[in-house]
């Protein structure tokens, strides 16, 4: 049993920590968010140079062959910095689908570009009616000559506005919620018939409603096997669930530590509010929630690295249940204990609270993952 990081993992962690510390303070983030794209291409270039965009990809594809633990390390730090660059969308979601299902030609065309930072992607899997059910796919892909014609509406596609390409789930056969019959397609961002409505999200990211209206793609756009997309999606989303969970753990760490600091400085009734025992206990609770979430994060990452199957799925769902509960508690209490200051746009705390709240409903809320945990 060993919970310590290897030397390479420590180096990775250090490089992210340095970036967050030196180049991504709260003001910088705010400026970046106010820009047209809502993130910084400069930062993205730096991510590429530092090798972060290569983390989860195999060495033969130009990556560094990292696994779930490396992804966890990256996302935990990005979470601490509340980083808005679309790492999750491009590297973990779109990149993940390519990693697991792409053929040599597809990997050649996309992974290298992702790794060097020249292409961004997004995974368009959710639909207005689907909630968290990955098999609930109403978007259709109809065979047309050698290729397919795609039509449908993809909901809240994270990283959609900056995506050069999309990985789209569409139904090639089967009933509305059959796991079989879902196929993944690579679709160019400027494909005829694809339109997006872009918007900011409440937690500082960017997303799109993507409409596919008779989008024609060739047979070479099929990612993986025809009808076999669901299994790929499930694995990618599980990895992404670990990722947002790790992001939340990073956010919780900042929330509890900043709250402790604040409580030592803020004086009311002639003493630092941290002297009030009721607040001390509350902060202890925040700390415990953070630690519990961290334990489940390690478990999920290690299980995923052991191999993808029932045990890993269960660990991921267990982690997400814990993150949902802990993240909410820690975020809400951080705001509460900061008083009015916690409510302001100008302090970081409220922004962590918003992100933690939205992570709860990303890739399945507590109810969803409790059910899944019990079922697998």
């Amino acid at each position: 049993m060993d919970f310590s990081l290897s030397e390479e993992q420590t180096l990775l962690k250090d490089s992210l920590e340095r970036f967050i510390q030196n180049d991504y303070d709260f003001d910088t983030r705010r400026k970046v968010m106010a820009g047209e794209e809502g993130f910084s291409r400069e930062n993205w270039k730096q991510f590429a140079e530092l090798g972060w965009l290569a983390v989860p990809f195999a060495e033969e594809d130009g990556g560094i062959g990292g696994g779930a633990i490396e992804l966890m390390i990256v996302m935990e730090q990005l979470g601490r910095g509340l980083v808005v660059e679309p790492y999750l969308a491009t590297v973990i979601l779109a990149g993940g689908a390519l990693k697991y299902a792409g053929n040599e030609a597809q990997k050649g065309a996309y992974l290298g570009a992702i790794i060097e930072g020249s292409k961004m992607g997004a995974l368009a899997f959710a639909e207005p009616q689907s909630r968290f059910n990955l098999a609930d796919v109403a978007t259709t892909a109809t065979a047309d000559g050698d290729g397919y014609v795609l039509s449908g509406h993809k909901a809240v596609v994270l990283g959609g506005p900056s995506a050069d390409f999309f990985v789209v789930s569409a139904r090639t056969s089967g009933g509305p919620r059959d796991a079989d019959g879902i196929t993944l397609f690579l679709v160019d961002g400027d494909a005829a018939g694809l339109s997006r409505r872009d918007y900011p999200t409440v937690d500082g990211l960017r997303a799109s409603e993507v409409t596919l209206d008779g989008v024609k793609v060739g047979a070479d756009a099929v990612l993986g096997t025809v009808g076999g997309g669901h299994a790929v999606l499930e694995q990618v989303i599980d990895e992404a669930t670990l990722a947002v969970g790790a992001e939340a753990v990073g956010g919780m760490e900042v929330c509890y530590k900043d709250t402790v600091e604040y409580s030592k400085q803020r004086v009311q009734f002639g003493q630092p509010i941290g002297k009030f025992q009721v607040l001390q206990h509350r902060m202890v609770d925040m700390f415990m929630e953070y630690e519990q979430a961290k334990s489940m994060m390690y478990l999920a990452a290690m299980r995923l690295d052991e191999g993808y199957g029932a045990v890993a799925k269960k660990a991921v769902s267990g982690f997400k249940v814990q993150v949902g509960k802990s993240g909410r508690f820690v975020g809400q209490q951080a705001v509460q204990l900061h008083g009015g200051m916690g409510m302001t746009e100008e302090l970081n705390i409220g922004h962590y609270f918003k992100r933690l709240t939205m992570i709860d409903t990303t890739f399945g809320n507590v109810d969803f993952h409790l059910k899944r945990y019990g079922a697998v």
Partner: protein
Amino acid sequence: MDLALTDADLAFQAEVREFINTYWPEDVRRARATSSRFEESRGHSPEVRRWIDALNERGWAVPNWPQEWGGTDWNPTQKYIWDKETAKAECPQLSAFGARMLAPVLYTWGTDAQKNEFLPKIREERMIWCQGYSEPGAGSDLAGLATRAVREGDEYVVNGTKLWTSGAHVADWMFCLVRTESGAKKQEGISFLLIDMKTPGITVNPVYILGGIHSVNEVELKDVRVPVENLVGEENKGWTYAKGLLTHERTGIAGVARSEVQLARLKRIAQETGMDGGSLWDDPAFRTRVTELEVDLEALSVTELRVLAQVAQGGAPGPESSILKIRGTEIGQAIAMMTIEAFGYYGMPYPEQTLIDNEGPIGNPYVMPTMKGMLYGRASSIFGGSNEIQKNIISKAVLGL
């Protein structure tokens, strides 16, 4: 013990409903409830103005005030019916700072001149007030306030900074706690002043809260000259007046009827939200949690009735009214959170107003107002005496600890 409504009560209820349907009809209600403009949803559209004018014409604008100043002769049941019905229809209320917080101080301790000048304008919502209590260094510990007022002839000269002043950017006047004497006890030496926001020396700076909402401000007061006739009651007794007023703030804050509306909306949204071919409402896990909230709310509702009954028998709401504030805000926050959860991924979009104006909302039209309400609602357990402070009050004043 008896909960039944009499025939007279029922007739009154019908009268109230008809009035509401005439002046605050269904389409206006919906437009306001789905408005993504938070500030607007609190401000004065022509529809709101019409409603408030109608209230005044009918004599129903300020049911709780003494009759000589425009209050009604309703019994507690009628007041309860009124509150319920207006909340159910999400009728706009008079600005609480004037009508619910300042007015009781004025009709209890104000001079005749103050009553005559201010009460009618508050009742008709022709004068908007803000509450200048909190300061950077005086939040929960309000008595630690440092804004000073020094008497010079017929005027007070006020210097200091107020923080978190809701609506200061739209207010005509501010009621304000200032230090007039550095007494032995910090609660002594505080006075209650009425300040015209147009007085030279006042600067209002916006403070944006989560979601980019502008509702609170910092108010700087630099050599602001206030005529002595704007002092309420006696000098150095302001704390007593303000404390009475805070209890009023506390009962109103339970928001039972408002939570009932939000809960009904949450159920409707769950019914309209797809899940596995059916709706989210079919999900036993979600449904159980909503039902739990419903039971919590019912308990609170009866607790509130008990407090109101006590008030009706001539008692003032005592320290137990803190229960209403604590549980009311907890339940309100939980409902808002669950509604966001119900939206699933569609809880995330937070488009600019111009995008909504041009292309309509993204997902359910209730998403934006719910999100803004949820974010703002986090403050409900912080202002009006934080929930921690309320628990301190209960443990001390009720439990004797």
